């Protein structure tokens, strides 16, 4: 009898292990492994355009003392933070409407539509924005038709924001909507019963309760914008050097993969810290 119970327990443990296994395997193979390789690579040397295993600190010293690295770092952080804030602000009314004012059917259709942009290549979407924003492009002609003369909007901060919001907005709306839809509606009823007006219900009840979703949406927008290369290159014209552009330049010039690894590791460290801080804030007890 005891051995039968033991066998059952063992079988249950094996069954549990089978389902648990993919996660550590995936993490080890696709995150920890490449991360260790990246850290190791950052100490290598490049001799005659060939990567040479080594252990030298020169790559770290070179990048961390380069003024252009820190200006690109500050610019990238500022652009990503602006894009995250903009996407969050634009997404919030949409998510509120989807969650509270639409019928379940209309809600499903609209949320489905927000997934549709992911069916198209992001690069193609950015190229099509070029047609709108370029010199004598559609936007410039429309503005001229109503008597407003504008120059080309390409390679401007506005173009950068348009590109990054194109990338992040659908995801932010979906995350915010899921968060708002899972909100306990009795809290809202209670707030109304206690005499709160719509504005107070929104700011004192709905938004605080939906904080995890709003913060996580902004975090994802920040992460995507921080590492984006396409918008900075094709809508920013390479004029606003971001860390992704710096990585591409570093590899292009002299095949400096180890220095590019240093830049990449700095980006990863920044994103990890940002993610940890955001999650701590999102789930902080008030």
């Amino acid at each position, binding site marked *: 009898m005891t051995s039968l119970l033991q066998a059952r327990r063992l079988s249950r443990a094996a069954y549990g292990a089978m389902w648990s296994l993919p996660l550590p395997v995936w993490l080890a193979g696709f995150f920890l492994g490449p991360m260790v390789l990246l850290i190791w690579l950052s100490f290598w040397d490049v001799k005659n355009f060939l990567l040479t295993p080594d252990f030298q600190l020169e790559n770290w010293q070179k990048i961390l003392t380069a003024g252009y690295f820190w*200006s690109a770092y500050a610019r990238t952080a500022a652009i990503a933070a602006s894009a995250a804030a903009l996407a969050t602000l634009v997404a919030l009314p949409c998510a509120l409407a989807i969650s509270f004012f639409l019928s379940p059917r209309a809600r499903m259709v609209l949320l489905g539509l927000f997934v549709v942009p992911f069916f198209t290549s992001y690069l193609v979407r950015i190229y099509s924005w070029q047609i709108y924003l370029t*010199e004598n492009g559609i936007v410039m002609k429309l503005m001229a038709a109503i008597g407003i003369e504008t120059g080309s909007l390409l390679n401007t901060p506005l173009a950068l924001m348009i590109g990054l919001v194109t990338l992040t907005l659908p995801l932010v709306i979906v995350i915010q909507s899921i968060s708002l839809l899972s909100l306990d509606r009795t809290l809202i009823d209670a707030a109304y019963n206690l005499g709160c007006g719509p504005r107070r219900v929104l700011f004192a009840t709905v938004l605080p309760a939906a904080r995890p979703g709003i913060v996580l949406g902004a975090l994802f927008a920040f992460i995507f914008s921080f590492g984006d290369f396409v918008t900075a290159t094709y809508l920013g014209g390479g004029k606003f050097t971001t860390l992704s552009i710096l990585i591409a330049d570093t590899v292009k*010039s002299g095949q400096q993969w180890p220095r590019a690894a240093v830049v990449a590791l700095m980006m990863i460290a920044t994103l990890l810290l940002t993610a940890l801080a955001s999650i701590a804030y999102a789930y902080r007890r008030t």
Partner: protein
Amino acid sequence: MAKNNLTRRGLLKTSAMAAGALAIPMIARAQSVTEMTMLAWYGQAEPDAVAEFEELHNVKITPKYYVGGEQMLALLAQSPAGTYDLIHADAEYVQQLVRANFVEKLDPADYPFDDFYPEFHKFPGHWHDDELYAVISRFGFLGISHNLDAVSVKEAMSYDMLWDAKHHDKVGHFDWHLPNLGVLSLRNGNAQPYDISGGAWDKLQETTLSLKPQVRGFYDYGGVLSSLKSGEVTVMPGIGEWITGVLRRDGANVTTTIPEQGGIQFTESFSIGRGSRKAELARKFIQHASSPAGQYNLANLNVFPAIIPSQAGWERMIAEKPEDARHLGMFKGDGNAIDLIRKGRIHIRQLPVQQDLGDWNDFWSAYKSA
């Protein structure tokens, strides 16, 4: 009711015979067609460049494209000898190919140098210790490329126009430091734009940084084409007919002017890869590319047009494509491409002599980030 006589064994046998019969032409073709590999700048091994040779010699050229000489060197460094039969490279990188032992020596007698203009009989970058390692295929000049609706040829005769207030936010850069810093070095009066002292290098950095407020953007090949065509930028230093020639085919009103301070020459060439097992075929390819017919073809490649060193090729261009020949500088008389070289207005693009290439790279990153 008809009896079905098709047994499983019969079906398998018939299928095998049919598959074999279908495969025979492919097998026969695969046996007769020789494959040759070419490491080349993008677009240089497309059908318009190689189809004629492929047909003549029953060969299939498989390209591996690169963007930038340093990427080419890295690809070679990471591949075993013999990986690439043909190497298409810019002159400034041929010396590095030789030093790294990536290319075979060539016999000058194999190639029609007599037909080439004398300037290319012993082109400096292609020879090392009096031995030939690369044969020039075509070349071009880099100066100021501009939209003629916004900038006249007269105006573009000086690099100083780049700082003109009316071109604020209308200056574009091809995103590569060598041609840009080369022409700005000429603007600073350096007779040897890439062989400059520490003081001249400091001055060049200062000059370049002062241009940044005028700059609209930094572009790759596609971006250069679209920004000049759309009018997003009206003027670009350090590029040439390799861009404006392509745009003109598409109806754009653009050209390239070599300012009085001078221009930079880029030079393409072919070499045979070290350890190639198709060296004889590669030699035939270079001979074909150097022949008048091959040269005429190379002048008109779809990827971009360029000047050719063959005098017979010039004659044919002038006779058959006079307008393209004129824009490229292949015409008789004063001011043609060879005349500009002879007058000393053209300087060969090369790697920095007194500074490390890394210093120029780092400065370019700093400039973009400024």
